[in-house]
């Protein structure tokens, strides 16, 4: 009988489930980074700092996991930041209107689901490019916030709520981090052990083939946008707890951080490639850098530059690490030959 089994394959498939090579690269980058910072500034690892840093990372990572679902289908969601802002604001408004906590939470989640449903419907059932509709939603959601109260924050969030989502912690872990952990586990299971999850990857890999396999591609895509915005709603609620108020500018530009976290973590914007673990690592790298720069008293004028350089460095480490032996040589050779005319050649 003809055998098509290539031992080359055994590796990837197993690894893919646990910690795919893909992540190792960025993970190394992360370890290096953490090492360097904590040597320069031991306080970096102090529980106090880890507490606030992890909370800040979690707030981004929750949104990042949301947009990760969308990116897996080769889509994109630019409305993430505005969705976080609006859902949080809605939560605040509900409280202001005297609603009990469950109602306020449902209002926020419902608002998120609605935003996602609109994005998803227009993308999946009308066929508009995700970039455009979600860009539109970005504007719409943000200006909705401003039209409600001309940008004023909503104060007077009930203590009962703040106790859970604000100061609230469990074994010294803040509520956003707990929420993130639960969300990450759930997402990992959904993406790797349910038909829905595999179909999300399938669409990113080959949408036509997925459709021909009798899968309702539209519905799967639609759902990814809903999931994304619901994650945003979770982040939005957490932000209200974090800020102890609902601010009008919460989540501004968050979409870029969220997408960057996913991509740094090895998610392909062309769809079908990426893992929840990678997203977490990506978000952590960004959070660590931001926190480290302040701890190291880097001048604000330079911080952005350092962030930029580290993002690129992480990506390059990642590429080199994922390249096979001789590609790696080739890459090194090119980097070396950068000044020589050889740089031009393939």
């Amino acid at each position, binding site marked *: 009988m003809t055998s098509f089994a290539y031992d080359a394959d055994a590796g990837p498939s197993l690894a893919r489930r646990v910690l795919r090579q893909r992540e190792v690269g960025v993970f190394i980058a992360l370890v290096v980074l953490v090492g360097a910072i904590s040597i320069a500034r031991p306080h970096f690892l102090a529980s106090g700092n880890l507490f606030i840093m992890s909370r800040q990372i979690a707030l981004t990572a929750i949104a990042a996991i949301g947009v990760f679902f969308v990116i897996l289908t080769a889509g994109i969601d630019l409305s993430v930041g505005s969705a976080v802002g609006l859902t949080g604001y809605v939560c605040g408004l509900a409280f202001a209107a005297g609603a009990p906590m469950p109602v306020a939470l449902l209002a926020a989640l419902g608002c998120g689901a609605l935003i996602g449903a609109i994005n998803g419907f227009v993308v999946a059932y009308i066929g508009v490019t995700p970039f455009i509709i979600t860009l539109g939603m970005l504007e719409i959601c943000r200006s909705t916030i401003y039209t409600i109260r001309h940008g*004023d924050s909503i104060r007077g969030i009930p203590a009962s709520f703040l106790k859970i989502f604000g100061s609230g912690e469990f074994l010294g872990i803040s509520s956003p981090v707990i929420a993130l952990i639960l969300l990450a586990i759930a997402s990992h299971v959904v993406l790797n052990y349910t038909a829905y999850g595999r179909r999300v990857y399938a669409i990113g890999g080959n949408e036509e083939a997925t459709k021909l396999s009798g899968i309702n591609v539209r519905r799967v895509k639609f759902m990814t946008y809903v999931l994304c915005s619901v994650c945003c709603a979770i982040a939005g609620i957490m932000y209200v707890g974090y800020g102890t108020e609902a601010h009008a500018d919460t989540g501004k530009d968050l979409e870029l951080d969220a997408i960057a976290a996913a991509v740094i973590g090895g998610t392909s914007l062309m769809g079908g490639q990426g893992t929840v673990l990678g997203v977490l690592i990506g978000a952590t790298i960004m959070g660590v850098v931001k926190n480290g720069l*302040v701890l190291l008293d880097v001048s604000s004028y330079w911080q952005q530059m350092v962030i930029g350089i580290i993002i690129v460095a992480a990506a390059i480490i990642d590429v080199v690490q994922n390249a096979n032996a001789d590609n790696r040589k080739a890459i090194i050779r090119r980097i070396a030959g950068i000044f020589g005319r050889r740089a031009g050649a393939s």
Partner: protein
Amino acid sequence: NRTDNKQHFVMVPKGVNPYYDPCYEGFKDAGAKFGIETEFRAPQDFSVSEQQEVIEDLIQKHVDGIAISANDDQGLVGVIDEATKAGIKVITFDAPAPSSKALCYIGTVNDAAGYTAGTEMAKRMGDKGVLLMLQGGMGSQNLNERYAGFERAMKEKAPHVTIIAREDTQGKIPVAQEKTEQLLQAHPDATAIFGLSGECIPGAVPALKSANKAGKILLGGFDDIPDTLAAIRDGTCQFCLAQKTYKMGWLSVVELQAACAGKELPKQIDTGVLLVTKDNVDTYMAHMKEEAQQWGGEAATMPATMGAGTAPATQK
């Protein structure tokens, strides 16, 4: 023959922001008092180009006067020129456009305001301690001027205070909160925080609270937005400096009217800043209004409470 019907003045802020609400309130009230039709026209975002469009449009409308909060100095030279040619009186408020033909600038002189703030901070810190600073956008001209004035005052009045950090809040409250949290980690010895722009205090407050340092660390900064006032009431924030926005609006009408009446206007009127503390947090607005409302009409000379700069023109 337009003399017989109402004059029409328009206020053009930098963009959409609650900060301008009191400005327009003052503008409106003055208009009502002096029988002038007033209008508020804000560009959609804080961009020169959109501000140009608004002004272009007002020129077509042949309004009588325009009060602009300039998004950019040079960028507005052209349109302001056009407007002046079209016989429209143009002044700037809140943010100047010195290179333009604008007749007068009514507002806070940032360096002076920074100096006032520094003086207050120095007084409260008592020439010792470690100061953390927050600023919304490191590229912002106004804020850099404020900082300059602030730093000068500190050097003169509290040379032993160390300004140990100056972080960028990107003008966003949540970012201000994150940065404050990080700063408190980086500098546990910090004794005071000062915010050069409006979002800093609202961001610093929850950070101080969750670090259980509310009230233990001196917190002050610019702008009297609701969040900040709330913080002053509950004692997390000790003071803020309110720009006299209502007054800017009011005086804008007064000066435009004077200009229309052919009066020579002073190049600059510093409306100064008002110190808001727990004691006057509920009353300062009323005072600011009263103080402003005595200008124009039959009012005579300027009282001493008026900040630096020249007296506003008064009219018969």
